[in-house]
């Protein structure tokens, strides 16, 4: 056995080397860390947040916690309206939600699933404070003045034994107190509880709870909240509305994803949306087909150019390369505005066609605000992304191969098709995936030249964020799009490798 080799400082060489290596690794990581943290915060977290929002659905259980709990016992398939308990819970929840103004947000959220709920919630929000439940308040306060004393309420609600006996009252009072502080900027100990707290107290009393000051509740005529809500709008008596609330009560939902593939949660599980609401599958297919056509056009136009550039003398090729790189460097908006100007009915292209006489003046071509416009403009915009990878692959194919094939008797076509083309396939693959990835997520150009028929899925995402405010659906559509792009990116990485991404030729 030989002694371990010792480094100058007396440690074994192996340990010394390992330490040096570790230090080197740490230094490299320390250099990378600031950027990595920056990207994680400014980019990766937003994407993760979007993914999370596509399934997040806390608004229902946050706005109507009691209703959601009470609905547990209700059978959605029964076809019957839920019982009085659920309406009692709804009353408390709504009275609180109105103060936070969250009932309209919840209404518009549920309106995505069943139309009409938004107006139902708005209408109910206006009238929920005017219910006849003040009879309970009166009855309790008449029976004993301590029920009208805010200080007394605070004292009761601080007593754990009373809290345990009056579960509904406690929960209603707690949320009321919270609301008084947060929404009204008042102090609970100075405010008389609102009707819904007394209504909860009455319900506790009816179910046999012992009241802090006993009151005979048998003399109070009960107010049917079910009838009261039914009076606002008979949609509250419609089991469908309740089914929607129950279906979307969990904290996480796949509803947005179902929506983005034209499905919805029906009475018996997942079902197709009504014919007139089915737009997303069509839109996805259209996005795919148009991206594929743009990709095809790019191959068709890019291949000859790349071939020419790869086979010309360097000087000429460099000069011609400018014609490819200039569009590449020109602002996207400039190119889009150029096409918008050129393709108009009164634009340059139509003018020329009319002047030549191909097209009649009163029958000008519609080249813009449709799919043609989008495909022409986007082919132009993405063509450099096809030419550059094709060119860099073709540059590596030795021209002597073609000469060898010809000297062995191949015709020009055979030499190209059997010898040259197979070697350029990696370039076509790289260019195609690049163009397709870029095309499928395009927003600006389709928005400006696509009209209504030539828009992509990304335009719909933007619409849901800025106009319809259905953020969950926008997030779900975005997640699907992101998945498609990531799969393609993975394929691109396998074929080309991300390290080989080159910029500007």
């Amino acid at each position: 056995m030989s002694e371990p080799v010792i480094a100058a400082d007396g440690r074994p060489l192996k340990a010394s080397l390992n330490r040096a290596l570790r230090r080197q690794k740490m230094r490299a990581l320390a250099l990378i860390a600031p950027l990595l943290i920056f990207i994680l915060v400014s980019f990766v977290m937003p994407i993760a947040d979007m993914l999370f929002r596509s399934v997040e659905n806390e608004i229902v259980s946050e706005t109507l916690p009691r209703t959601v709990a009470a609905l547990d016992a209700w059978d959605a398939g029964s076809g019957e309206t839920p019982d009085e308990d659920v309406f009692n819970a709804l009353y408390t929840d709504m009275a609180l939600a109105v103060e936070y103004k969250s009932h309209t947000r919840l209404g518009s959220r549920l309106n995505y699933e069943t139309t009409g709920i938004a107006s139902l919630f708005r209408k109910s929000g206006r009238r929920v404070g005017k219910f006849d439940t003040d009879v309970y308040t009166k009855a309790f306060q008449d029976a004993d003045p301590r029920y009208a004393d805010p200080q007394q309420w605070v004292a009761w609600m601080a007593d754990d034994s009373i809290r345990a006996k009056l579960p509904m009252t406690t929960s209603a009072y707690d949320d009321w107190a919270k609301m008084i502080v947060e929404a009204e900027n008042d102090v609970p100990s100075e405010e008389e509880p609102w009707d819904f707290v007394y209504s909860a107290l009455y319900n506790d009393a009816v179910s046999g709870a012992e009241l802090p000051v006993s009151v005979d509740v048998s003399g109070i005529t009960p107010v049917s909240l079910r009838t009261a809500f039914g009076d606002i709008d008979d949609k509250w008596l419609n089991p469908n509305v309740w089914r929607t609330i129950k279906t979307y009560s969990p904290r996480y939902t796949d509803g947005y994803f179902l929506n983005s593939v034209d499905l919805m949660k029906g009475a018996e599980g997942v079902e197709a949306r009504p014919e007139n609401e089915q737009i997303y599958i069509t839109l996805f297919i259209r996005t795919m087909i148009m991206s594929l056509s743009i990709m095809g056009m790019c191959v068709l136009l890019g291949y000859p150019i790349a071939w020419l550039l790869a086979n010309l003398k360097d000087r000429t090729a460099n000069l011609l390369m400018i014609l490819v790189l200039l569009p590449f460097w020109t602002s996207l908006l400039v190119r889009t505005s150029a096409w918008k100007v050129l393709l108009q009915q009164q634009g340059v292209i139509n003018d020329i066609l009319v002047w030549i006489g191909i097209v009649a003046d009163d029958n000008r071509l519609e080249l813009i605000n449709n799919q043609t416009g989008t495909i022409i403009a986007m082919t132009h915009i993405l063509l450099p992304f096809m030419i550059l990878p094709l060119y860099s692959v073709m540059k590596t194919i030795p021209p002597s191969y073609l000469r060898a094939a010809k000297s062995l008797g191949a015709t020009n076509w055979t030499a190209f098709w059997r010898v040259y083309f197979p070697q350029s396939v990696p370039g076509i693959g790289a260019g195609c995936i690049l163009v397709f990835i870029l095309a499928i997520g395009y927003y600006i150009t389709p928005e400006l030249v696509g009209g209504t028929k030539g828009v992509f899925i990304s335009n719909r995402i933007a619409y849901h964020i800025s106009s319809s405010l259905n953020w969950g659906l926008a997030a779900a559509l975005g997640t699907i799009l992101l998945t498609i792009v990531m799969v393609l990116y993975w394929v691109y990485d396998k074929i080309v490798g991300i390290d080989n991404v080159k910029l500007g030729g």
Partner: protein
Amino acid sequence: MSGLPPYATTGQRAWYYSFRVICGLIFFFLIAPIIVIIPLSFNAQDFFTFTPEMLAFDPAGYSTKHYEDFFTNSDWQLALKNSLKIAPVATLLSVSLGTLAAIGLSQSHVPFRRAIMAILISPMIVPLIISATGMYFFYSNPYIPTPFGKIELPFTLTGTYLGVVLAHAALGIPFVIITVTATLVGFDNSLTRAAANMGAGPVTTFFRVQMPLILPGVVSGGLFAFITSFDEVVVVLFVGSAGQKTLPWQMFTGLREQISPTILAVATILIAVSIVLLFVVELLRRRSERLRGMSPS
């Protein structure tokens, strides 16, 4: 394709010339839309096509009134100012962080190199509309995720200058990483060792030895980052507010709502800018190749 051999048949000749014509047409398709708007921007009328006076080269058909509009209209001037305020800061941020990280990544033993690279490149791969959506959600209500739930931060980044700069810096970083790592591939590490050997600290080595050699890559990465921010409209539409209206945003609304020929004047100015950028990047690329050719490999 280097010339036509003297023995070529008529068919080959026909193909040779028709191929050139086809290529010419494709080049025309690439460049014509950009060239055409330059004369159109000097139109004396508010039209988007050539007027008879213009075709007759009548000086009365041309004017610089759209340029005057651009330089006097407060909307356009504000947009220009915003663009010039946002892009350089975003570029500085992505170049400084990106260069450091690229140097870290190019060292020989980096754990998780591929995964880190994939994360750093991702802003370039993810479609802009998705980045914009995510940033819109997250920046409007930033939070720190913890295992116990979200800690919501008491400020918002949407509609602020800082938010737009952060978003644009993130979008520019992949370009810096790609160009700088490409320059570093040919970097001779014995130079830094030699510097260290002669007593230079890591900072001196970086600024006196490494930086001058990789500068072309850093600058062209910076130019890419700059043009990304300067030309970006989707993210700024979502993350910014009217106070951060940039030049592309103003063009976008101009094209969508009230299309005015001033856009063509702006477009012409931007084309001039991109020609300059194109040449700068090309010069830098050549310089970088020359520098790398000089260092022994």
